[in-house]
């Protein structure tokens, strides 16, 4: 599957490049950030990823992401579809005046805008505070174990670059 990457010097794809993983994985448990479970998969070319996937640190990041994104997605999709159904099925209710020219329909429509802005802010804040630092640690752990190395990973995609902006 990775053959399309031939000649793309700038691409980091681990799966089609078994050598670094195989030769360096036994050292994995010695790394400070390295997850400690799943060492039996060490002979597997993609062993590092499976190991990280089973680690408590990764499960924590995944749990925090899904714990926020999934319920909130269900909630806002439900709120949007409910709004659509109300607008098409109950126009009389929507037409009830609230204050001046403002009626229920206007309030609900502007409410959709307001919740979109609010959820955007909440998601960005949650990700920045609860997920980014841990995800970055894991990223370094994977980079070290697969010998992408700090030099390579740091040189290509400096994670700190954004902070300067």
């Amino acid at each position, binding site marked *: 599957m990775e053959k399309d990457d031939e000649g793309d010097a700038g691409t980091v794809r681990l799966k089609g490049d078994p050598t670094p993983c195989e030769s360096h994985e036994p050292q994995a448990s010695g790394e400070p950030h390295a997850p400690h479970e799943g060492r039996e998969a060490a002979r597997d070319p993609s062993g590092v990823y499976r190991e990280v996937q089973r680690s408590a640190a990764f499960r924590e990041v995944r749990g925090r992401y899904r714990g926020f994104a999934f319920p909130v997605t269900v909630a806002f999709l439900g709120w949007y*579809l409910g709004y659509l159904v109300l607008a098409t099925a109950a126009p009389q209710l929507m037409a009830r005046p609230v204050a001046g020219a403002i009626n229920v329909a206007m309030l609900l429509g502007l409410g959709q805008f307001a919740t979109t802005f609010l959820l955007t802010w909440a998601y960005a804040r949650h990700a920045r505070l609860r997920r980014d630092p841990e995800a970055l640690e894991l990223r370094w752990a994977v980079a070290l174990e697969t010998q992408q190395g700090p030099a390579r990973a740091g040189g290509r995609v400096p994670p700190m670059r954004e902070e300067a902006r």
Partner: protein
Amino acid sequence: MTGTHQGLALGLFSVIVVVTLAISAWAGRVRRGSPEEFYAGGRMFSPMENGFAIAGDYMSAASFLGISGLIALYGYDGMLYSVGFLVAWLVVLFLVAELVRNCGRFTLADVLAARMGEPRVRTAAGISSVTVSVVYLVAQMVGAGSLMALLLGGTGGRARTWTVIGVGALMVLYVTLGGMRATTWIQIVKAVLLMGGTIALTTLVLIRFHGDISALLTTAADRSGHGRNFLAPGLKYGGDWTARLDFISLGLALVLGTAGLPHILSRFSTVPTARAARRSVVWSIGLIGGFYLMTIVLGFGAAAVLGTDAVRASSPSGNTAVPLLALDLGGGAGSTGGTILFAVVAAVAFATILAVVAGVTLASSASVAHDLYATLSRRTGRGARGEVAVARVAAVVTGAVAIGLGLLAQNLNVAFLVGLAFAVAASANLPVLLYALFWRRFTTRGAVWSVYGGLVPALALVVLSPVVSGGPGAVFPGLDFDLFPLENPGLVSVPLGFLAGWLGTLTSSEPADEAGHAEAEVRSLTGAGAA
């Protein structure tokens, strides 16, 4: 619309064409050749730049002129579009942007290949991406033709034809000369122009009503001829149950389709990290949300200032509501202010069309060269060298196809075509993308079934819909095979896409690739090994 309008508007159009071509030439001068440069613009755009570019890619002339026009004609029902187009971005932000940045390289197929990697999956995703892009492109071309004909006064066929050909030639030039770098800067310039123009007009409307929104709405209701009903849903979509279901189908397609649009997905490859992708979406939600709020003011403003009858008299679809409003706010026909504002609005609409078609053409050529051609050339034993050259050729072919279809489809409704593109994206691209990102047991067969299981029903239902046959407004008015009552297939085809992916996975003979899933999941959430 008099000769001075046209003269000034044409002058501004020329300025836009010169500036955008200069951007393309400048961008093409820098580092030619690598796919990283051509498809992703070097991956080093800042979140703010990419946020503006996403907004520029997304806010089409159909939104600027079409939604305001719908509100001017039908009041509240026009607003329902704005809401759907904005809420869709929460799907992109929560479920797609960061993970796609981490897993993907350029196209949708790259994300799927991160864990499935069979040529079949790449081909399927390539076919559906090209289909979505071409439908969306035709919608924009048809819109450009009728819009320019209206704005320039010449409603004849010749103005439309030359606009379609001219826009097609320009978009091919931008993409072949400057790739993603040029496209991105053109979109940024366009987003700034569009936001500037919209803010100026909104401010003028609010000044006219002394900042009193309630007075604006009341006047709009009075002058619409519908009274209070103008401010409540039901004027456009309140007919029989078919019409109401059709609207829910459209709403579903809008909110789920955005996250499956190839030209939106490819924008996340232009920033260095997932965090930057997230921050670009936050920027774009701010811009797009602000923009749609202002189109609501402009729509009700057009009804209040001009009156709904005057808007309808100028154009039955309402597309000229905003230009006419600009003319009035500037001081009326014949005044200097009116002439200038009118020309500015026309120029902004023109820039908008150019930026959107450039983005879609690039995404389409990336799918052809990176997914379809690359799969084919691997099978025949040739390398993937010269992929960028293929992408440039693909852009020319895409442009030619879009011009051809754009000329053939001149009489199709633009809103229908846009809704169709969103419905196909929501049915064929979104289910496979979400399954690949979140479902551990998802298999290659599931992926292939999911793409075709959404794509084929979406297209088939359109062919069987009243748009194609059975009525006076249909493509083939003489024939009658409209077995499916809805114009938008989303309500049926989106669930079918999800169902097909699920069934395909359950019936797979081989289990899911656990190692591939581990790699994809870890990469998607941590950014390890990201391109």
